[in-house]
């Protein structure tokens, strides 16, 4: 079976605009919520993907971001807490022709839905998983989430959260994901590019979107998203290119043994030749990049950490069916009813 071409690639030339993907429902997110931008970037990206509208299915669990399907004019399923990934698996396996999208918050996906998250990635169904990471429980009004930093003061942790947080990209790598990327609600252009890359990946695409909750965790990512600080604290990953960042493009990352360190490109000692070159096909490098967030001195990487080819789950299933049909043909149902041995009563 052909492994490089998705079933959901362009089949008909349908021309859409972003507006065609907006439903008639009032959007009920808090004014100023980062979710608005993510919704807008998805709607703006979809026309360029050329997927017929009736083939699009948006599936979500529970949480603020999980209302997403109601605001799309496509097929949609607002399910139960943590289970969007499992429900999406059933949808995709039952009909591989559909383009299946999952929108989930960090609580929904990493906490109650943590199990299904891992298994979706290892199975590698051809679906797109957008995680809106605001490092807080929004819908339940402000408890710490599995991505909240340790010691965070929240409604349920008045003297600080005792939990050490998950690193979502490391978790996705550990679960053998084949596409792992990060973007930000406040960088529309980059976010659109990442959504497009995720959609085109053949297999499960995991896109973590850093999203501001302006009510319960305002400014959690301002260091990375605001004009004054962004350039000195974010490194944009580009395949085949060295890791350079900073207002004046004067900072780089090089490896000291296994340890990533920041170097000054103007110090007369270092040049771009010393730097780490991004390779989207290296799982080992992806682990190193993924660890950056655990080191405050390192910039936050955004972009595609990893994209590798692997057969999808539904392709393997299709191959198994083909194999069975080739070998035995389609089954005669009366043979099934009779079983292996029968006897006659006259």
């Amino acid at each position, binding site marked *: 079976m052909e492994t490089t071409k998705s079933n959901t690639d362009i089949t008909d030339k349908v021309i859409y605009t972003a507006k065609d993907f907006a439903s008639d429902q009032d959007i009920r997110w808090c004014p100023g919520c980062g979710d608005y931008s993510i919704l807008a970037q998805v709607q703006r990206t979809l026309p360029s993907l050329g997927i017929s509208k009736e083939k699009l299915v948006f599936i979500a669990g529970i949480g603020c971001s999980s209302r997403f399907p109601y605001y799309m004019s496509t*097929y949609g399923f*607002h399910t*139960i807490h943590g289970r969007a990934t499992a429900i999406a698996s*059933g949808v995709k396996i039952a009909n591989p022709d559909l383009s299946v999208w999952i929108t989930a918050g960090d609580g929904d996906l990493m906490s109650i839905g943590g199990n299904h998250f891992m298994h979706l990635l290892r199975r590698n169904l051809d679906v797109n998983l957008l995680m809106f990471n605001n490092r807080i429980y929004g819908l339940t009004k402000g408890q710490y989430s599995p991505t909240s930093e340790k010691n965070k003061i929240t409604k349920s942790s008045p003297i600080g959260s005792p939990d050490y947080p998950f690193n979502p990209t490391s978790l996705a790598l550990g679960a053998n994901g084949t596409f792992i990327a990060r973007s930000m609600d406040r960088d529309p252009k980059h976010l659109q590019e990442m959504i497009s890359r995720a959609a085109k990946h053949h297999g499960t695409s995991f896109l973590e979107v850093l999203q501001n909750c302006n009510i319960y965790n305002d400014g959690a990512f301002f260091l990375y998203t605001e004009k004054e600080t962004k350039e000195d604290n974010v490194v944009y990953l580009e395949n085949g290119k060295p890791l350079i960042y900073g207002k004046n493009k004067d900072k780089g990352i090089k490896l000291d043994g296994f340890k990533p360190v920041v170097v000054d490109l103007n110090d007369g000692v270092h040049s771009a030749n010393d730097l780490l070159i991004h390779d989207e096909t290296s799982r080992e490098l992806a682990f190193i990049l993924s660890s950056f967030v655990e080191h405050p001195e390192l910039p936050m990487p955004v972009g595609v950490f990893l994209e590798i080819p692997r057969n999808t789950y539904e392709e393997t299933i299709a191959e198994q069916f083909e194999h069975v049909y080739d070998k035995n043909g389609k089954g005669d*149902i009366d043979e099934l009813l009779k*079983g292996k041995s029968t*006897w006659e009563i006259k």
Partner: protein
Amino acid sequence: MSEDILEKTNRANKIKKEVDSVTVRFAGDSGDGMQITGSQFTDTTAIFGNDLGTLPDFPAEIRAPAGTLYGVSGFQLQFSNKDIFTPGDEADVLIAMNPAALKVNLKDLKKGGIIIANVDSFEKKNLELAGYASNPLEDQTLEGYYVYKVNITKSTLEILKDLPLGTKTANKCKNFYALGLMYWLFDRPMDITLGWIKEKFAKTPELVEANTRALNAGYNFGETAEMFGERYEVKPAKLPEGTYRNIMGNEALSIGLICAAQSSGLKMFLGSYPITPASDILHNLSRQKKYGVITFQAEDEIAAITSAIGASFAGALGVTTTSGPGMALKTEAIGLAVMTELPLVIVNIQRGGPSTGLPTKTEQADLLQAVYGRNGECPVAVIAAATPADCFDMAYEAVRLAIKFMTPVILLSDGYLANGSEPWKVRHYNELPKINVKFRTEPEGFAPYLRDENLARPWAKPGTPGLEHRIGGIEKQNITGNVNYEPENHELMVKLRAQKVKNIENDIPDLEIEGEKSGKLLVLGWGSTYGSITAAIENQVAKGNKVSHAHLRYLNPLPKNTENVLRSFEKVLIPEMNLGQLSKIIKTEFLIDVVQLNKVKGSPFKAKEIEAKIEEILKG
């Protein structure tokens, strides 16, 4: 055949005694192959043409330490020349492969019954493990029984000694020696098991040779040893004309699902997580790809059901199979299927509970969970199979109702039905009622929560142009399906969902009464108690007592005439393998008092237990 053997055969044949029914129990260590022995005897007996009922009874441990009481595995079957309904109350013949097997099973042996004991295993260590201070084969313990001491182990090893097998492997063939002996004792043909051995061990010819030798040796021992005073003959049963097969409950259920999927034209998607005693359905269906069945072994019970819900949303037939603890985990998702009004079949093969309970033992204690066990007003259709073969019909029916009413349907079976077997008159696919599916394709006038005459909403699958819509677990506005929190709308939707499930009563058969249509006593059953109740009533009627039987296959909603049936009798007796769950439902639904007969011992009712209660009521 040499003259010598021929002469002996004739002699043996001369003292063949014809009997109507026999109950045999094979018992040994869980590694002794008792389940294989029992099922081989069953297959042979079925093809020979007897009616039969089986009761496998095995520990939850895969290979419990040898010789222990808790490691004993048993297989009981009753076979007969007439129509029978149970695996038999008490065994006529017990094959005890070791002292523990004797100790555990002696209480279920008829007084004066036959014990065939593997005398080689009755040595010091095994006797101690079984808690025997002295050897029961030699003291007074077995007084009143016919005891045959057979060197099953030694004879098996002896006959295999020239084969290149280790003692351990050779020792494992001893169950076929015991089986051969039973084939002789009950005059059964050997060819079915000989064929099975050839197929099963095709890759290891020495095991084909070894097991064939052991089987023949056991048979020949019976014939030549002059140990047994008589052989027994059970003539084929006079069942209605037709082609028959032997079928186990889980197999019947699997086939029923496949036939229903085929009839509806839907792709079947099974989302399942391994759990005893439901796993065999997953195994059966995973082998049936040639019928287009997709099986998804999920990461947990929740993913099993939610993936099936997703498949149903996408236009496939979503099915999930489990047992009690799995049902508990699926509860929230069942609510989602109720709220989104998608077809879904949920199969619960009940086992002893609560919690992990008794994984390999049977019970009927998940009825209230099935009918009521969810948050909110959450109506679900609940149906139950009555016999192993009935699992076929009820699986087919579950699919039909789920599609017609766009609703989840819970199908209850239990460990006894799942692993028990009976002869089944083979159905022809063309004779099955057609299941119709109407996918909505017309965009004009479409709304996701429109309703047909049954109150079912349209099934509009993704991929259909112009029908893009959103569903979800949050309350929906009537007709439009938009998110809606208004109090009037919520109450309307709660009532619509309840009425829809209630409407199923117009689409199911009336509750039938077996026996007199009114009178002093009705025995009302549901699920796997069918066989025991039927056998009990047959005996009671033969004694001249007046008692009738009605058996519920539909538990929610109940058949429309249920109350009328119950009110036609002075008293209603409900035997259940729980503490009175159907009794509770009947009492609350109809304000009718009932007499309860409850058993929660992990094993089905014996007919005599029900008979005792019937006699007590009739006397009073």
